[in-house]
């Protein structure tokens, strides 16, 4: 009977472990990712989001359609997004306007808003910085 219980518990642990990554992948946009792994280096947004959620000191650089961004999280749960290099096809005046602009967002551990990394315009309501201002202002031309 005792042997059966141990086997059952092991099976349960295995099932939970197998299901955890799947649950993480289906987190809807706009909600906080439920994540536990906190790698010290990342190369993908998904990895960064998981680490930032745990307030890990980490920076990644990603090239996207709008330009090359750097995303940084810190131990004191501060997120910084910087538009390092705008898209080469922007006009010179837009490049000058956008280049090097940053925004910062303070958050509570476990409540990282993944839209800060996946979106240009959403989720910035409580963030601050010139990048937020410029991205907001440009919506006047939308």
């Amino acid at each position, binding site marked *: 009977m005792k042997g059966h219980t141990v086997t059952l518990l092991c099976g349960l642990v295995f099932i939970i472990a197998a299901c955890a990554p799947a649950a993480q992948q289906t987190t809807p*946009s*706009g909600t906080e990712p439920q994540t536990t792994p906190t790698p010290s280096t990342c190369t993908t947004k998904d990895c960064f989001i998981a680490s930032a959620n745990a307030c890990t000191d980490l920076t990644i650089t990603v090239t*996207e*359609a*709008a*330009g090359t961004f750097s995303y940084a999280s810190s131990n004191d749960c501060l997120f910084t997004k910087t538009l390092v290099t*705008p*898209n080469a*096809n*922007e*006009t010179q*005046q*837009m490049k000058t*306007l*956008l280049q090097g602009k940053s925004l910062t967002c303070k958050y509570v551990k476990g409540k990282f808003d993944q*839209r800060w990394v996946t*979106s*240009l*315009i*959403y*989720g*910035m*309501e*409580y963030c601050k910085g010139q990048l*937020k*201002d*410029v*991205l*907001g*202002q*440009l*919506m*006047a*031309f*939308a």
Partner: protein
Amino acid sequence: MSKTSCHCFVVVLLLLLQVAVVHAAFVYENHVGTTQWKVEVKVDETGCGGGVETEDVPVTIKHDNTLADVGDFGHGPVRGTFNGNVLTIPGRTIPDGSGESQLYEAKIQFTSDCLGFSGSYRWNYEDSYQECSGTTSLRGTRNDGKECPAQAGVLSQREQIEAARKELDDVSKEREYQEILDKDPQNFWANWDMAELRKKQGKAGESLKYVDAATSNKNILASTRAKLKQEELKRLNLATVPTPFTSPLLRESIGEADRWAGGFQYDVSVPKDAAADKNKWRFLIWTINAPDSGNLVNRAMGLPGDE
């Protein structure tokens, strides 16, 4: 005449002049809006073998400065022209029973207290059996107020907005704005100011609702956006307007805005439907993220009655 009585005379004269100026200030040819009337229509058909018939007809007049679209008081709706307080309705020929009537031009005098009008016009009737003439007299009485419409409309609304903005405490401000919204729920200025007030109070959900109401009027939204575009061009120190074709970042931003699938703005859950009107939604995103958006809109839009 003693010095005292002379002073009294001057004061009375000034008061009389002031009253005269106030009354002279209103002319229908400068009015934009709608007025409602009860019109007594008196048709004299004695020249056609009939009698004199009188009927009361409710009539709406839509004023657009000198142009006035007058509702049907017997011969169908008609467009007239104001010169001062005189409305001229052009002559025209209309089908009438088995024949037709030729209506002569009508000159209708509106009273300076804005409460009435009167006028008449001649007409000729002709069918295969007879030709005859008669007269129609009109006498209108205002149904929608006892003062000149401009005093009850744009002017007082402007004053109310100004008064509300000067109030120091939020309760008084809200009361003033609510009075305007009770009469005009989509009023841009009252809704916009309430949105700013709620934002300041940290009530984001209510703020978004007021922005939504403020931008319900498509004409006002279009004119606000056009003005803001120019303001932002200056603030950003851009020489040319960026477009989705010239700016990959703007193209991405617009794409994201239009793909809104529902989610949070501030701490408020906003459904997908909220983005159905793209112009309205993009304006909302600008409102939320652009710095000092509240004051910028106020500067761009001025007050009711401004050009």
